[in-house]
C-alpha cells in the first residue's frame, strides 16, 4: 500500500535539522508522499526505515526485462489505467508460437514470416520480438527446435513455454545466454522453477486455473524472494482472459496491491482457435487493454500491418505529438530541376508521404511548414496550413534558389487552397496532388516537365 505523509513522518528522526532543505521533517515527509522529492535527500533515516520506504515507494507495476542485446525487451512499469491520464510506457510485445509438435515445414514457414515482417514505421522497428517455444512432449524435438531458431539468424528474445523442470534444465543450457523468459511455473513446480531461474534472474511466467489461485501463487513465489514475474491471463475463454487482464492491472494500479503488479501474458493463438481474423481482433483488444506479451500463431503482414500500427498509436505520449522539423527535405537526391511537394509537420504524415516519394524514385524537394504538428486536414481546419502559411514558407525558406522548377504539388485533401497559393505565388504552377499519398508514385512518374 502507498504510505501517507504521516506514515513517512513516523519513520523520520523528527529532529527538524533542515538538511534536506525543508523546514521540518513533517514538511519533508508530505513532499515525499506526494512524489515531489526523493527520500534519499534525508541522510538521517535508519536502514530499517529506508527498507520500509523503498518497499512502499517502489513502482506499483514492476518492469520486467529479458532478451539480450538488440533483442532486449522491457514490459510493465505502467502507472495509469487510461493513456490520457499520463501515458502508457512500455509497449506490448508480440511473440510467435513454435512447438515440438509442429512439422518442420510449419516451423520453417513461421520463421520465414518472422524474418520477412521486419520494417520501420515512423522511426520504430516493427516485428515479432519473441519466439515462444512450447514443449509439447518430445524432448529431442524440442531441443532441436531451440537449436533451429538459434541457427535461423532471427534476432529475437526467447520464451521457453514448458512446465517440466528437467526438460527446462537442458533447454536453458542452450539459450540461457539469451536471457529468455521461462514460462510455466504453477502451484506444483514453482519451488523448483524459482531455483532454476533465480541465479540468472530470468523472468518467470506463472500460470494458475483462476485469478485467486494465481494471486496465491504470486504470494508463494514472492515468499521465495523472487519478483521477476509475468502473469498468464489466458485461461479457458476470451471473456475470462479479458476479465483477468483488467482485474490484474486494476488491482495493481488502483488498489495499489503489488501482488498483481506484473506484466501479463496472453496466448491469443489458443483463444482464437486457428481463426486468423479472430486472432487480429483479440490481439487488438489486448493491445488496448492491458495485455503485455501477446502470443500469436504467426506474424504475417495481414496481422502485422494493423497490430503494429495500433500499438504504435496507443503507446505514444499524449502530451507530446510526434513532429518533424519544419524544413525542406531532399528526397532521391533532388537537383535544381526538381519539383516541390508540400506537406505538414505531423510525423506520421511526413513518414507516409516521404516513403511514397522515395518509392517513386523521382527526385523531389519536400517542404514542411510549421503546421502545429497536425495532419493535413486537422492543420487546415485549425488554420495552420493555409494558403498564406504555404506561400510564406516558399518565399522565406530559400527553396526558390535551390530549384528552378516552379511546380508546387499540394495534398489533394486541401485542393481548395490552390487559388490562394496561386495568387500569392504567381511564378509557381500550383498542382493538386492525389488525396492519398499511396497514389504519389504513379502521379509523379507520369507528371510532365519534371527532371
Amino acid at each position, binding site marked *: 500500500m502507498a504510505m501517507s505523509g504521516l506514515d513517512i513522518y513516523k519513520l523520520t528522526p523528527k529532529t527538524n535539522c533542515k538538511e534536506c532543505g525543508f523546514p521540518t521533517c513533517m514538511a519533508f515527509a508530505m513532499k515525499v508522499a506526494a512524489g515531489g522529492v526523493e527520500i534519499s535527500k534525508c541522510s538521517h533515516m535508519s536502514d530499517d526505515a529506508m527498507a520500509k520506504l523503498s518497499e512502499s515507494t517502489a513502482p506499483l507495476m514492476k518492469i520486467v526485462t529479458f532478451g539480450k542485446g538488440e533483442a532486449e525487451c522491457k514490459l510493465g512499469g505502467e502507472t495509469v489505467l487510461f493513456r490520457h491520464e499520463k501515458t502508457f510506457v512500455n509497449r506490448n510485445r508480440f511473440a510467435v508460437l513454435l512447438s515440438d509438435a509442429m512439422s518442420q515445414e510449419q516451423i520453417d514457414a513461421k520463421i520465414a514470416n518472422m524474418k520477412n515482417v521486419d520494417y520501420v514505421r515512423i522511426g520504430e522497428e516493427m516485428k515479432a520480438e519473441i519466439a515462444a517455444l512450447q514443449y509439447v512432449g518430445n524432448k529431442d524435438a524440442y531441443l532441436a527446435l531451440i537449436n533451429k531458431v538459434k541457427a535461423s539468424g532471427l534476432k529475437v528474445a526467447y520464451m521457453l513455454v514448458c512446465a517440466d523442470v528437467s526438460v527446462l534444465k537442458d533447454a536453458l543450457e542452450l539459450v540461457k545466454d539469451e536471457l529468455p523468459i521461462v514460462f510455466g511455473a504453477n502451484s506444483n513446480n514453482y519451488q523448483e522453477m524459482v531455483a532454476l531461474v533465480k541465479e540468472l534472474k530470468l523472468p518467470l511466467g506463472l500460470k494458475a486455473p483462476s485469478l485467486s489461485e494465481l494471486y496465491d501463487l504470486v504470494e508463494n513465489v514472492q515468499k521465495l524472494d523472487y519478483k521477476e514475474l509475468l502473469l498468464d491471463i489466458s485461461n479457458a475463454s476470451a*471473456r475470462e482472459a479479458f476479465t483477468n487482464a483488467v482485474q490484474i492491472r486494476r488491482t495493481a494500479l488502483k488498489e495499489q496491491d503489488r501482488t498483481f503488479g506484473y506484466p501479463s501474458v496472453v496466448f491469443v493463438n489458443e483463444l482464437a482457435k486457428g481463426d486468423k481474423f*479472430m486472432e487480429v481482433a483479440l490481439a487488438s483488444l489486448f493491445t488496448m487493454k492491458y495485455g503485455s506479451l501477446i502470443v500469436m500463431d504467426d506474424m504475417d503482414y495481414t496481422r502485422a*500491418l494493423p497490430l503494429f500500427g495500433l500499438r504504435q498509436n496507443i503507446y505514444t505520449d499524449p502530451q507530446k505529438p510526434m513532429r518533424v522539423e519544419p524544413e525542406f527535405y531532399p528526397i532521391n537526391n533532388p537537383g535544381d530541376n526538381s519539383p516541390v511537394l508540400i506537406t505538414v509537420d505531423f510525423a506520421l504524415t511526413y513518414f507516409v508521404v516521404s516513403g511514397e516519394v522515395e518509392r517513386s524514385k523521382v527526385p523531389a524537394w519536400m517542404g514542411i511548414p510549421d503546421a502545429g504538428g497536425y495532419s493535413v486536414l486537422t492543420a487546415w481546419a485549425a488554420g495552420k496550413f493555409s494558403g498564406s502559411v504555404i506561400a510564406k514558407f516558399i518565399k522565406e525558406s530559400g527553396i526558390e534558389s535551390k530549384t528552378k522548377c516552379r511546380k508546387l504539388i499540394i495534398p489533394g485533401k486541401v485542393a481548395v487552397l490552390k487559388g490562394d497559393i496561386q495568387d500569392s505565388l504567381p511564378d509557381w504552377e500550383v498542382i493538386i496532388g492525389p488525396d492519398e499519398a499511396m497514389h504519389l508514385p504513379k502521379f509523379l512518374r507520369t507528371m510532365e516537365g519534371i527532371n
Partner: protein
Amino acid sequence: MAFKTSVQKYSGSIYNLELGTGENTLALGGQNVFPFYSFDGDTGSGTKIGLEILDVYPENWVKGLKELYGSVVGNTVEWAKYVEEKFAPDFICLRFEGADPNGLNKSFEECATLAKEVANAVKLPLVIAGTQNYEKDLKLFEKVAQELEGKNVLLLSAVEDNYKNVAAAGVTAYKHKVAAESSVDINLAKQLNILINQLEVKNENIVMNVGTAPVGYGFEYVASTIDRIRLAALGQNDKTLQMPIITPVAFDTWDVKESASTEEDSPEWGCQEERGIAMEVSTAASVIAVGSDAVVLRHPRSAETIRALVNNLK
C-alpha cells in the same frame, strides 16, 4: 491475503435508445460500466454490428468483396435483402455515395425514393449515411427522413453546420434518431449534444459519432476521446455525454494504404482483401474496446469476426 475482485461503481449510465420498429427493433446503450466489464455492473444492450451498402455500384471496393456479392450489388434493394438474409447483421447502413456533389450528384428525390424502397424491402433497422458534404446532407436527410417517416432510422450524421435542420427534420418532424458527429474532441462532442438538446431533442434520440480513424492513423486520439467521454458520462454523471456511440469504421479503414494497395503494388504484403479485413477488424475491435456501442463494417467476414468476438466476451 486472498484476492478480492476490484469493483468500480459509477453513478452515471448510458441512455437506452431504440432503432427500427416491430420485432427487429434494435436497442443501444443502457450500460453503467466500461465495455465487457460485467464484474462492475450492467453491460446494457451490448455491441451492435451493421453492414454497409451503397446507393451505387461499389466501384472502389476490393475485388474479392465485389465477387462475394456478385450481381446483387447492381441493385441496392436486392443488395439490402441479400445482406439481411445471408449475413443477418444488427442493422444495415445505406450510404448515399452517389449523392456526392463531387460525384454523381444524384437528386434528393431519387435518393429518398431509393431509401423508401430499401426500407420496405427489409426488416432490419436502417442507418442512413450521407455524403460528408454538409450542405448536400442537410437537404438529403430532410427528404429521406420525410419519405421514411415511421421507420425510426438513424441519420448519420448531423454536424455543427447542419444540425439544426437535420435534427429538427429527422427527430422532431419525422421521429427518427440523429447521430451527432464531432471531430475527435470531448468538448466538441459535448457542445454539439447541448446544441441539439436546445432544439428540444432529448438525449434518448441522439447517438454520438465522435470521429473515427483507422489503426495506425491517429487512432489514439479516437481511443482517448472515447475513454474521456465515458469517464465523464459514467463517473461524473454528465448527462450531456451519456448517449450511445456509433463508429463508421468502414468509412476510412479501406482507404489507407494497408488496405488499398494492390498486390501488384505491394507484392510482399500478400492478399489485399485479407489486409483490408484485418485493418477493419482491428479498428473495430479497438474502438469497441474503448466503448463504441455500434460499428459500421464493410466486409461480411469482418462482421462475422466481430460478432464472434463480442459473443466470446459476453
